[in-house]
């Protein structure tokens, strides 16, 4: 078993990139791998609690809360979140909020890194 760090920098409700990242994390956890997930840039939106569930959007809050409860680390970039008006009290329970060096440290100890950049 190894450790996979997924960096997700891409937006957001309406983009399927976060869905991809979450599904991959789920599949890796099921196989017994450790998973760290870093949310930066527009990806930090995933960490915002209180997103209302509409059929038009995949609603990831429950899936990712379960993922965290099952042992995955999900951490949002503090500066990126603040710039978007998401404060500490907006964070989904169980999520981390750290500065960018957390991601580098997570990559340091990861066997594999999937850095999802782009827009």
């Amino acid at each position, binding site marked *: 078993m190894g450790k996979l760090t997924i960096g997700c920098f891409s937006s957001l409700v309406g983009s399927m990139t976060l869905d991809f990242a979450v599904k991959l994390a789920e599949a890796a956890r099921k196989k017994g791998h450790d998973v760290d997930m870093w949310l930066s840039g527009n990806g930090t939106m995933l960490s915002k609690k209180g997103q209302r569930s509409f059929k038009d959007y995949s609603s990831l809050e429950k899936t990712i809360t379960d993922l965290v409860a099952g042992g995955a680390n999900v951490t949002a970039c503090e500066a990126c979140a603040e710039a978007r008006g998401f404060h500490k009290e907006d964070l989904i329970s169980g999520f981390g909020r750290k500065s960018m060096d*957390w991601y580098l440290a997570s990559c340091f100890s990861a066997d594999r890194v999937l850095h999802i950049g782009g827009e």
Partner: protein
Amino acid sequence: MSIKKMAFIVDKMPYKSETSRLALTHAIASQTVEIHLEDGENVEPVLAFIGAGVLNCLKNQKASEVYGVTTLESHIQNALLTDIKVLICEEDVKKYGLTEDQIIMDAEELGADITSELVPFSTIMSEMESSDHILFF
């Protein structure tokens, strides 16, 4: 002593989204990563601009005056100031008809000791191959 090398590769243009900006800020975060690591462990970043990403390196960006947002220019200078290796693909600079004097090569006025380097793509390729992880922005 355990060092992990990480390649931050920028192939996106500046100012469309914050992608290239986040490459710079994350690379610079390697300066403080030690607080999360054991003694003797560290991250060695190398930052490379390829393809349309070399347009991040144009001098005299005025985005701060116009839009009130830090320029990529000042981020690149900060990277040099913190001794991060900055590589710029010379084939792509040439492809866009740019010359070395149009490109951010140093941050002397800020007191940086190192300069950015115009290098062939093959050099950047080697850096990717010798890196432990590749982060494409």
